[in-house]
């Protein structure tokens, strides 16, 4: 009820203005009217009193003699004469003691008035709108001889006062109405501009964001309108931006979702307590759960029971390192397992710490790994078999070499032995040709024995176990040179051997290399009055190369490839003896050391043999 009234009164600015103006008018006018009525009343009272005093004084003067002489008749006449005053209520003459001598009401003559003042001075007994009652003493020669009492009552005063009030009320009402009307007009003028803004606001609310308020002028309403418009503009701008942002966000969300769900790996996001926050569709698909089922599982259910015990450790490691990769085995809903490689990472998920596991199905890898393992095993098996076969082959070769050394040499010995026996025992029965033939038989036999020995040497170089030591080639070369000199002290050969040439390899085999190369140099400088044989070291393209150089017979470079072939010779046996196995032996040994050997030379201009050792 009260709220209804309040709404009615203060529901709009216009009404508030009208109510305000009306209230102000009402209060002001009421106070004004009340003040006027009050002053009017006081004026009336004052007038009444002065009239009463004037009347009583006049009567007292005129009734001195009558009072003093108790001329009742005369006094009554005087009193009655007073009745010309319409307002007069009563006029009384008493003696000193209050005995009524004359009264406008004749019936009361002779009565005593008890309410007379005691002292002989004028006294206002009553002063109100209904009655002004004044008593004044009658004095004769300063002797108090009696009292005059006059009562006046202006019957019209109250009426007049009521008139004043009534007219005041009327004025008040008129003023209120006028004020309200003015207020209404002004309010209308004022609020009309506000309503323009208001209607724009309502239209914007209804969805038409393009409208703007049009309030002219430079007052506050115009400012408000301009402010409101600029606010609308800003809002519209913000809405445009916001819409674009939302669109971007939605697109980004869609992209993320697309990526998340079409990723080639299963993705699980869980919080630090092992509750899933999100899983992608591949995760569900791979493990055979619906999205809701998987989301409700605890993290520990993901792994097989055997793997489950490591979950806590992994979380701890992940917390420490921020990123952690490991292999595990996931379990499908149906109990089957998936070997999985997990790349786990700490992430921020909606403001809380979470872990993202990107899980790759490595079943194929595992299968491939198993296949590789089996292949390796097979290969190893095959290597073992081959090695065994090789060992058998080696053994066969060794037994072959053994039987060559034994069985082929036996018959040769017989041929040589009996040829010699024939020459010695039956020499007299043979002519020179016969003896010559037998000598040739013996030479051939011995050469064959030499060849067999060389073949054995070659096979031994191939078979022997290699040591790897630091070898001083210079010392070796010096001792070989001394040995060669001893075989023919007549020859003038200068050996130039570089000091402290070191190499890494098998000492016996490297000795054989130098023995052959220096031996060749010695052999092919035979017949020179003076010869020079050099052993040294040189750097060829960053690699250490060793060389043996002589100024002997040399060779034609076009036969270079024949130099190292077994039993191939560039000279006749008569020119230079030999089986043609030496350089083949050298090549075998150098190759076994991972090096290469080659030669440079020209006919009659000497030869240089180079070799490198790969392990240096």
């Amino acid at each position, binding site marked *: 009820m009260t709220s209804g009234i309040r709404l009615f009164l203060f529901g709009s600015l216009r009404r508030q203005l009208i109510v305000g103006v009306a209230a102000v008018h009402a209060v002001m006018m009421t106070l004004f009217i009340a003040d006027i009525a009050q002053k009017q009343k006081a004026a009336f009272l004052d007038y009444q009193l002065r009239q009463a005093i004037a009347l009583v004084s006049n009567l007292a003067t005129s009734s001195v003699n009558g009072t003093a002489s108790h001329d009742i008749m005369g006094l009554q006449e005087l009193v009655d004469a007073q009745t010309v005053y319409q307002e007069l209520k009563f006029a009384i003459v008493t003696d000193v003691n209050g005995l009524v001598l004359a009264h406008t009401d004749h019936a009361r003559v002779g009565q005593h008035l008890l309410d007379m003042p005691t002292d002989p001075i004028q006294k206002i007994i009553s002063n109100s709108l209904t009655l002004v009652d004044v008593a004044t003493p009658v004095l004769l020669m300063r002797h108090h001889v009696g009292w005059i009492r006059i009562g006046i009552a202006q019957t019209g005063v109250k009426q007049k006062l009521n008139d004043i009030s009534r007219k005041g009320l009327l004025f008040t009402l008129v003023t209120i109405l006028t004020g309200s009307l003015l207020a209404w007009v002004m309010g209308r003028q004022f609020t009309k501009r506000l309503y323009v803004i208001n209607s724009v606001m309502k239209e914007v609310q209804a969805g038409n964001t393009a409208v703007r308020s049009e309030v002219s002028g430079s007052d506050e309403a115009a400012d408000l309108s301009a402010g409101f418009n600029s606010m609308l503009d800003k809002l519209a701008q913000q809405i445009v931006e916001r819409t674009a942002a939302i669109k971007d966000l939605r697109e980004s969300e869609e992209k993320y979702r697309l990526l998340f769900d079409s990723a080639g790996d299963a993705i699980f996001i869980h919080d630090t307590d092992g509750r899933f926050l999100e899983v992608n569709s591949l995760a569900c698909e791979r493990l055979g759960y619906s999205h809701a089922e998987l989301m409700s599982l605890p993290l520990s259910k993901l792994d097989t029971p055997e793997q489950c015990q490591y979950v806590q450790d992994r979380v701890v490691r992940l917390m420490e390192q921020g990123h952690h990769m490991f292999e595990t085995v996931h379990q499908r809903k149906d109990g089957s397992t998936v070997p999985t490689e997990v790349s786990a990472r700490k992430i921020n998920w909606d403001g809380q710490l979470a872990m993202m596991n990107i899980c790759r199905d490595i079943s194929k890898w595992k299968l491939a790994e198993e296949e590789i393992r089996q292949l390796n095993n097979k290969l190893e098996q095959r290597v073992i078999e081959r090695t065994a076969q090789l060992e058998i082959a080696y053994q066969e070769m060794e037994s072959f070499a053994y039987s060559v*050394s034994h069985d082929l*040499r036996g018959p040769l*010995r017989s041929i*040589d032995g*009996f040829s010699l026996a024939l020459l010695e025992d039956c020499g007299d029965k043979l002519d020179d040709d016969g003896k010559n033939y037998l000598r040739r038989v013996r030479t051939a*036999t011995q050469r064959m024995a030499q060849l067999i020995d060389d073949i054995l040497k070659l096979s031994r170089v191939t078979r022997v176990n290699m040591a790897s030591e630091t070898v001083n080639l210079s010392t070796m070369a010096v001792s070989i040179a001394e040995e060669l000199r001893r075989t023919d002290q007549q020859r003038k050969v200068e050996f130039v051997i570089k000091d402290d040439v070191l190499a890494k390899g098998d000492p016996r085999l490297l000795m054989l290399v130098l023995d052959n190369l220096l031996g060749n140099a010695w052999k092919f400088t035979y017949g020179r009055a003076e010869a020079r044989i050099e052993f040294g070291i040189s750097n060829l393209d960053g690699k250490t190369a060793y060389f043996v150089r002589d100024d002997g017979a040399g060779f034609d470079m076009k036969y270079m490839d024949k130099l190292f072939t077994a039993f191939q010779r560039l000279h006749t046996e008569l020119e230079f003896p030999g089986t043609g196995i030496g350089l083949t032996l050298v090549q075998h040994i150098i190759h076994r050391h991972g090096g290469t050997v080659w030669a440079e030379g020209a006919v009659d201009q000497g030869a240089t043999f180079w070799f490198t050792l790969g392990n240096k």
Partner: protein
Amino acid sequence: MKNKWILLVEDNADDEELTRRALKKNKIMNELIVARDGAEVLGYLLGDGDHAGHNKDSLPSVILLDLKLPKIDGIEVLRRLRENEKTAHVPVVILTSSEEEQDIAIAYKNGCNSYIRKPVDFVQFNEAVQNLGLYWLMLNEPPVK
């Protein structure tokens, strides 16, 4: 000189003949007994097996032992001889075609006194036999008289 005899262990008849000739050429006239295989040697010296009856009272001044033999090979013969107290100190010279390092090593390991490779050149062979006879029959004092 009369009691000093040579035991030649050789399965090759040519080698036996050439050895005999070389000895003869070098005037080494001591008795030469030839065993054709390892088992025969052990029979002669230790009274083992088929040749138990052929054993002699005295021991040879030197045994010329080939390595490649039928039945029981040279190294095994050497090992058995060295095992037996009676023959443990008899001089044994390995006379063989092989100059394989492992053969030489294993022969010495089993207690041979010398190792000689038969040269193909018969002149050299003669020299070798001459030296052998001279050394083992003349110079060397045998462990048991």
